[in-house]
């Protein structure tokens, strides 16, 4: 092979590798985005069915109930306007408690119950998860618009 065609082949190989890798990355990216919805959006049916998404809000006071096995937990998450029931099996984060902000990730069942695979609270006591804060802010804004 001539040096020039060898070089061309090498460059073509590197470019092909690059294009393939980028295609892979973008495809995986699109498939694995997890969208965030507020409880109000979920109640209005704007959340996807059968695909994982996140809900943020406050854990409603008095809503935490444990099943007999001690490990399955039911609670409700709210943005002060709408309430979504959540079911979760596993250990809860240390800072998870009623009246505090939390973010849950999982899928919405046909019965309107949210099956959480992950529950997130914050690492710091002073801190509200931004997604939870956002949901509450949205609900307040909506309430104000209605009042006006």
């Amino acid at each position, binding site marked *: 092979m001539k040096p020039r065609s060898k070089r061309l082949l090498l460059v073509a190989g590197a470019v092909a590798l690059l294009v393939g890798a980028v295609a892979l990355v973008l495809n995986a990216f699109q498939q694995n985005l*997890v969208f*965030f919805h507020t409880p109000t959006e979920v109640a209005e049916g704007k959340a996807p069915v059968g695909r994982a998404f996140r809900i943020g809000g406050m854990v409603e006071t008095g809503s935490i109930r444990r099943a007999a096995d001690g490990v399955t937990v039911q609670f409700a998450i709210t943005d002060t306007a709408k309430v979504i029931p959540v079911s979760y099996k596993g250990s809860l984060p240390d800072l998870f408690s009623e009246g505090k902000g939390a973010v849950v990730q999982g899928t919405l069942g046909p019965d309107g119950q949210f099956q959480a695979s992950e529950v997130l609270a914050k690492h710091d006591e002073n801190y509200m998860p931004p997604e939870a804060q956002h949901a509450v802010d949205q609900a307040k804004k909506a309430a104000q618009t209605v009042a006006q």
Partner: protein
Amino acid sequence: MIPELGHFSLILALVLALVQAIVPMVGANRNRIALMAVGRPAAQGQFLAIAFAFGCLTWAFLTSDFSLQLAAVNSHTDTPLIYKITGVWGNHEGSLLLWALSLSLWTVAVTVFSRNLPDAFMARVLGVLGWISAGFLSFTLITSNPFDRLLPAVAQGRDLNPLLQDAGMIIHPPLLYMGYVGFSVAFAFAIAALLSGRMDAAWARWSRPWTTVAWVFLTAGIAVGSGWAYYELGWGGWWFWDPVENASFMPWLLGTALIHSLAVTEKRGAFRSWTILLAISAFSLSLLGTFLVRSGVITSVHAFATDPRRGLFILALLVVVIGVSLTLFAWRAPKLSGGGSFGLVSRDATLLGNNVLLAVATGSVLLGTLYPLFLDALNLGKISVGPPYFEAVFVPLMTPVVVLMVLGPFVRWKGDGVGRVLRPLLPVMVASIAIGLGVAFAVGHVTVRTVLGLVLASWVLLGSARLLASRFAERRGASAAAVLRGIPAAWWGMWLAHVGIGIFIIGATMAGSLNERLDVKMQPGQTAQLAGYTFTFRGVADAPGPNYDAARATIDVTRSGIPVATLHPEKRFYVAQQMPMTEASIDIGPFRDVYVNLGDRLDDGSWVVGLFYKPFISWVWLGCLLMAVGGVFAASDRRYRRLAEREAPAGAARRTT
């Protein structure tokens, strides 16, 4: 008084940084030895000033001086001594000071260990480092002054965040920062090369040990952080693809690419502009990482709004560093073209392939980390990109990297024959596939992921063994000791780091595929079974600590009736911060960890207990340790010192403008 002295010392450090940034640069341009010589004392004086400021801040923490805002927010009289000290960098302001301290430490190291560099080149390196330091010190002084007073003083501090009250906090941030900041040296060498137009094999040889040492620190820092998350966060995971972790992983990936690309530049004079670009990018990502973590951008984009000056300063600094260096690159890099050509089958080509893939992998992490932040900042909605994305991307991208990694050392530079390369490797290939499949069947977990991981791990380990064997074959007749002694340290470094990757893959694969977990409600006397182990819950007792109350459980672990361990997971409640914390208890073994954490107490007096079985998880960190040790070997190679001495007079004579 002492905080004011620290503040004053920090201002002095900024002045010295500006001197170091300007005077030697001017000297290098005008070829004035006297001006160039200013850089070294300025750098050393700056180090003393920053160290003194750091000492003053530490003193305020040690003496619980709660008239100092930072100490009042992050310390407490009951905080154990060691966490009073680590509390100095367990916050935004103090960690910036630690950043500045490690930068000046690196700068002083350059003035000491690279004494033989040509004067003009050294002046430019110190000048660049001076500019970085000046940027950081002014950022610290203007927006994040650690010496701000709290008047009137409070009687008691708020204590350090309990998550940070851990041995990991003692070494993780300093190691990580030494790694992040270490890439500034590689960056300064790259910019100095662009400025002077000198970018040859000698340049690569100067730059290599510095880059490798920074990479060693970063590797160790990431590994310690991952181990810390494993036992402290109490979820039993070791890597979460969290933005904060990604922020440190991106410079590591590019740093790995840089180490390999520098090898090509040193040996073959090729990849020169690519090497420069990698050095610039690795440092830019280090900066981005520091800021993402430290500015609070990650936990919330709105942290920008809490102190807009901080966010703006951060952006400005990043834009200046990236903008100036890329402009310089665009202007000067075309002069750097050249280097030898090489064939399709050559070590150069395998390293090129690895570099492309590592760069794409870095890009994919960058996309997953920044895209949600951009969307949120532009109010286009909130999304998150979780582990599934990164796993879907990383396995296919890293598979060819691992394959090439073993091939590379067998292939000759410039060009080689396919047959000559594959002859010794064919048996290795066949054996790896057989072992991978065999082990997967034996452990009863035949999935693509498990088989692939085991095949790749065998490929790396057997390939490395074969590589060592070929060193012996080359010197037939020589004694084993003579052969081993004859191998240069740099070669051992490469070999150990590659073996480390193999060990790491075993750990990640086995811990990922075969881990078992059970969350269960337990009353005293009850037992639970997991992975052949029997866990007996003996009950919970009070175990107060210095600054927390704790419930401490006793759990006996047995296997077929033979006692294995007695574990004591705790549920702590930190008094000052009013914050609960789970403290996991782990029986660490060479082939498996048994991990137990204590969840909530239920109304009937029972407890929720989390039981985990984690096979081969220690191998993850053993692999990282081997990589770091490999880096130490590589950086300590005698030829760097010898050549630095030989190169020096020639370089000095050739001093360029």
